[in-house]
């Protein structure tokens, strides 16, 4: 020991950790390659690493009680459905009458449909309490009906919400059936003695969209504005105001907006309008805005009761296009055989899954990632998540089409659906605390399998890890190449400042570009395509202006001679900012960061001026140049959008205006993905392009 110390003492002793860092930086090429490849491999392995779900909260006890929903409830529900489909014009009244016949407290909630508005500073803020435009006429009022059953012996501190969206103008058979299911459960719950939480049944007026109706009601519930809207008193609204009166005997009762405690959970019940001809399928839609998910236990209960008690097939969204892909099937096959080999070595190793299972898991995982990354809620349940209420949408797709079912007899279907909802409500009713026991951060690979945050962080970390290493190595190279003298050191720091300034300017440009739609939105009568072209044109223009402003001598550094390795420092700063951007995004919306990293990391790693590559004319550099060009094309946001859309959905009938529509949907839903694309992805792409075409 003493010997070695004397040896090392002669030359500076370097700590092991630092040594390791230096080692990594010096081998940044290999490290980045290995990191990127292993990141993708880890991502592909996620379906295998998925765990089976389990009910984490003991209090839930799903399915431990016998179902109480009898054929009599169903019989009355069928009556209700027939009444509803029979007379469409008075559907509000019928629903309210049926509700109050169950001794529920019925209230009408009138709301103005909220227009899609883009307010630039609206991201991350809590939903605003009512921006109501003044010139909305009475006819455009939506009317939600809420019935509340008070728990007979409960203290009324908590409540469970059932939501059935329906369009009063045209009650579809599926909607009528979903109302029937909710009614059957509601009529049961109005008589039971075990209820500990109040039950709210919200019949949401979906003529202006399901989401807006539910969110309007929630806004009134959670953040009322306490303003009597003037329109209510005008004459034209009398017809609607009449509805506001309580329908039956209890005319004396208070007819204002009613509330029932803190919401424990919410279930949105829907029935698909088309039958699928195979079997009754239950689709679960859990994704809320910005990739927020409800507590996994809520999905677990529904899945458990659906599969084990009601014999339904429970499904979550899948990327159907992935099923046909050959490479995924081959990969599945390889992994299956690998698993078999492993099992033959040690029977305790059970990581292998069959190829079909793998493909299915991968397809579900991809859709889960895509939907979370999009940041747009997949149903009206998203409105609840904005108020920290766990909610999911359950869409039952029946075997027979609802149209036929109503004309025959929907009894069996209502009984099945009603018992499922009853079980779920009963299970949530058992809950003493709020949902907190199970996961909130997870990706689903099937309705009964999930990948938790600890596992899905790994691919992202592997993808992103090379970035700082490459940035470090570039920095080291740049500082090494300059001979060390007093003047050059000063000059050196100027160089860094210069490239940092450039990167900052480009990011500012990104922010400007993402604000542009706000102004474009003021243009009346514009189609998506024109909007998109104008947007693109304006962005290019602003970039040009920026370029000239930056190129002017005021902003130029004192030593204005072109730098040979200026691109290296620029690249290093670009990569560093991208790394920061991706890491920040992974906190806000992990799935976006993951998809973004898949797209942006390769070009960040291999970007290199084309001129240099072409000059050297070796096979390696030429392939690198073509790779760079191809990646540069792919990563351009609209191109990336079309690619992702094509991969996940369909290439068929894609239009230029689609991108505009997509962007529009992102900002109306306050998706952070929009900010990511504007402020991280686009500037990074622009900088990479700049590096590619750098005049060295």
């Amino acid at each position, binding site marked *: 020991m003493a010997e070695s110390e004397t040896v090392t*003492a002669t*030359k500076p002793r370097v700590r092991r950790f630092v040594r390791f860092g230096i080692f990594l930086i010096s081998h940044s090429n290999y490290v980045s390659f290995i990191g990127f490849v292993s990141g993708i491999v880890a991502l592909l392995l996620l379906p295998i690493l998925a765990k089976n779900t389990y009910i984490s909260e003991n209090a839930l006890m799903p399915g431990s009680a016998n179902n109480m929903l009898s054929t009599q409830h169903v019989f009355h529900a069928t*009556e209700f459905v027939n009444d509803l489909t029979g007379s469409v014009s008075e559907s509000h009244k019928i629903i309210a*009458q049926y509700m109050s*016949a169950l*001794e529920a407290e019925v209230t009408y909630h009138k709301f103005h449909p909220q227009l899609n508005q883009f307010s630039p500073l609206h991201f991350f803020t809590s939903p605003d309490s009512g921006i109501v435009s003044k010139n909305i006429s009475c006819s455009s009022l939506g009317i939600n009906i809420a019935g509340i059953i008070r728990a007979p012996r*409960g203290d009324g501190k908590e409540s469970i919400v059932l939501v059935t969206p329906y369009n009063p103008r045209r009650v579809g058979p599926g909607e009528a059936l979903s109302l029937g299911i909710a009614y059957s459960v509601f009529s049961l719950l109005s008589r039971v003695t075990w209820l500990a939480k109040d039950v709210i049944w919200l019949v949401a007026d979906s003529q202006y969209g399901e989401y807006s109706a539910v969110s309007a009601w929630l806004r009134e519930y959670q953040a009322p504005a306490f303003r009597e809207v003037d329109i209510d008193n005008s004459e034209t609204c009398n017809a609607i105001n009449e509805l506001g009166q309580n329908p039956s005997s209890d005319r*004396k009762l208070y007819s204002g907006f009613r509330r029932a405690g803190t919401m424990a959970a919410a279930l949105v019940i829907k029935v698909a309008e088309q039958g699928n001809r195979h079997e009754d399928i239950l689709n679960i839609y859990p994704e809320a805005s910005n990739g927020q998910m409800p507590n996994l236990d809520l999905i677990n209960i529904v899945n458990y009761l659906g599969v084990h008690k009601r014999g339904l097939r429970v499904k979550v969204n899948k990327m159907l296009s992935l099923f046909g892909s050959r490479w995924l099937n081959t990969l599945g096959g390889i992994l299956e055989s690998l698993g078999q080999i492993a099992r033959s070595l*040690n029977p305790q190793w059970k990581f292998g899954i069959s190829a079909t299972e793998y493909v299915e898991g991968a397809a579900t995982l991809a859709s889960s990632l895509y939907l979370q990354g999009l940041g747009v809620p997949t149903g009206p349940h998203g409105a609840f998540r904005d108020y920290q209420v766990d909610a999911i949408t359950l869409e039952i797709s029946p075997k027979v089409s609802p149209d036929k079912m109503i004309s025959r007899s929907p009894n069996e279907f209502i009984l099945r659906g009603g018992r499922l909802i009853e079980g779920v409500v009963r299970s949530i009713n058992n809950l003493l605390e709020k949902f907190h026991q199970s996961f909130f951060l997870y990706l689903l690979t099937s309705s009964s399998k999930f990948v938790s945050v600890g596992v899905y962080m790994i691919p992202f970390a592997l993808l992103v890890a090379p970035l700082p290493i490459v940035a470090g190595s570039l920095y080291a190279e740049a500082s090494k190449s300059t001979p060390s003298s007093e003047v050059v050191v000063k000059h050196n720091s100027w160089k860094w400042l210069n490239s940092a300034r450039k990167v900052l300017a480009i990011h500012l440009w990104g922010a400007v570009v993402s604000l542009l739609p706000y102004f474009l939105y003021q243009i009346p009568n514009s189609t998506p395509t024109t909007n998109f072209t104008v947007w693109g044109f304006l962005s290019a223009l602003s970039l040009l202006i920026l370029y000239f402003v930056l190129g002017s001598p005021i902003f130029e550094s004192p030593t204005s001679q072109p730098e040979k390795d200026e691109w290296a420092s620029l690249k290093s700063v670009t990569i560093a900012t991208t790394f920061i951007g991706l890491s920040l995004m992974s906190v806000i919306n992990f799935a976006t960061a993951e998809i973004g990293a898949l797209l942006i990391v390769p070009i960040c790693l291999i970007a290199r001026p084309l001129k240099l590559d072409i000059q050297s004319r070796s096979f390696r550099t030429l392939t690198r140049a073509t790779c760079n060009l191809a990646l540069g094309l792919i990563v351009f946001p609209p191109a990336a959008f079309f690619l992702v859309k094509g991969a996940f959905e369909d290439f068929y009938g894609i239009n230029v205006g689609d991108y505009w529509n997509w962007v529009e949907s992102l900002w109306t839903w306050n998706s952070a993905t929009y900010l990511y694309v504007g402020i991280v992805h686009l500037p990074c792409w622009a900088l990479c392009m700049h590096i590619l075409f750098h005049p060295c």
Partner: protein
Amino acid sequence: MALASTTTLALSILFLLPFLSSATVEEEFHEELLLKPLPDRKVLAHFHFQTEAPVAEDSFARHHHLFPKSISQLVKKFHIKAMELSFTQGRWNYERWGGLDPISSQNAKPPGVELWAVFDVPQHQVDAFWKNLTHSLSGLFCASINFLESSSSYSAPKWASQSALGSLRYGTLPREAVCTENLTPWLKLLPCRDKAGLSALMDRPSIYRSFYHSQRLHLKASMAPADGLDSGIILEQTLTVVQQPNIQKTDLSFSNEFKIQPSWSLSSIFGRKVNGRCVLAKSSNVYLQVERDLVAQLEKLQKKTATYADNDTGIDVLRGDLGFEVSITPDRVHRELEKSSSILYEYSIKEYNDTEQFDLGLTWKYPVVWSCPLAPLYASRFLIGSGNERGSIAISLKSTELTKGFIVANNVEEKCKLQVNVLQIVPWYIKVYYHTLQLLVDGKPQAATDFIERMSVSPSEDKVSTGVMELVLRFPCEIKSAILNIEFDKGFLHIDEYPPDANQGFDIPSAIISFPDFHAGLQFSDDSISKSPMMSKLQEKSPVLSYTEVLLVPLTTPDFSMPYNVITITCTVFALYFGSLLNVLRRRVGEEERLLKANKAPFLQQVINKLSSRFRGGLSESTQPKQPSSSFITPKLIIKIILVAGLAVVWQFYLK
């Protein structure tokens, strides 16, 4: 010996007799039951037991005949002037079961436990007495009333009771579960327990199946020997139960027509009958109250059906021919003084015994719809906002039919005002900003000072005391709605202050809304009826009182299941500490100094050089990738790794 003792007792009684007669004559016990059909097909049963005991200077040491000794000792020990303890399950439905009558304003209580007490001690001792009292009561009633001991759970409202300024303490436990273990000690205080008399009706399953039940113990002691007149303790025990007669699964009528009210009898509600009175009771009566609006509706109906048949209304009422039929003819019928009056049927159960049981039944003849009188303003309270940071409490008051009537009645006056008192108690972890109090009248924001007559605020102190806000508001009578809104921040608790099931959220106890201008009280002309303690209580002019809902505020809760993380962090800290310590101990300072001397450079320069060379060295290494790789991945290291891996494989396959 026994003889001697009896003679001394007799003698003492002889001596004491004049004193006793000057005070209250003797101990008394009354048992009463009030039954009342409610508009939403339910029945209210209100048991009222009253025990009175005279108080003499030394009477606490003595044995009581009827009065429970534990209570008298409590009164003596803690110098209680007045006290009320209630255990409640369920919510009183102020809209359907009424908000103006004496039962709702005196017996409708917030869920859980509510306790208030007035002490007859100097101000500075009140808290100490309160703390001791909570412990005694919690032992006596098998409840966790002792949680009211800590100063952060009770408060001293100023204006709730004018007479007891400063010596009143008030606390609630909204989460207390009420069950039969609380009822049994309560029944033990009765002279006949639940073995005879009206209390024999208290079948536990049927009581706890009810929609609302509230057991209350009200204690009033007047220790004024100077007066000589009213000195004594009055113990009032009431049990209010709201039940639905015959809940049957087959009774699922979904039709939308008016439903006939379910007929009921005592045996169908409670599953038991009255086997006669408690022999110790001075009076044991059962009353059946028919409400004002119900009487009016029934009379209207009757006029419709039989306009030409002029019946003698007096006989009509007695026979119960009013749209319903009573199974037993009442001993007496009382009518209220006013024009639209309620009717009270009185039954004395003195004559009933085991063979002839008392089983009052009521059968409806045709469907009636009526409503109970509501409080002048319907109060509800709710939370605004979501998330773990902040929110606000809103109390909304909406006018009801009664306010309109009030306007008409007071139309003569120029400016009719409606006084509303609000008492809101908030636990300390809800940090209320009292300056944010916002008042909206009829949907328009108004200056709070225009309507607030008086206001008393005592802000909460962290972990020490609750926040109390008392408001006296005066609204114009034509008010339609008013909303009081006050913002708060959510506080953080220390990890060991969290109660079990902390993730449920935290309760904000009910606010108390009272209307001093209105009086809940029935007015009967009969003098005979006012002898009955319950009826005199019902005729008392007490202000209308209502409680709002209990609110649940989700607070930030730590992940209680993270000992693993804690262990990991602790271990890391320990490792770092011991590692650096060992490093310091192991280092040979002398040798390093010698090395420094050898270099012959100043120390600072040396360090800088070392640092820069280390940095530059790191960079220089990157120029020649071969060299560091050879220094880092030495064959020695590779051999080591292979050895370890081999060991692991061997372990995995062969040694396991």
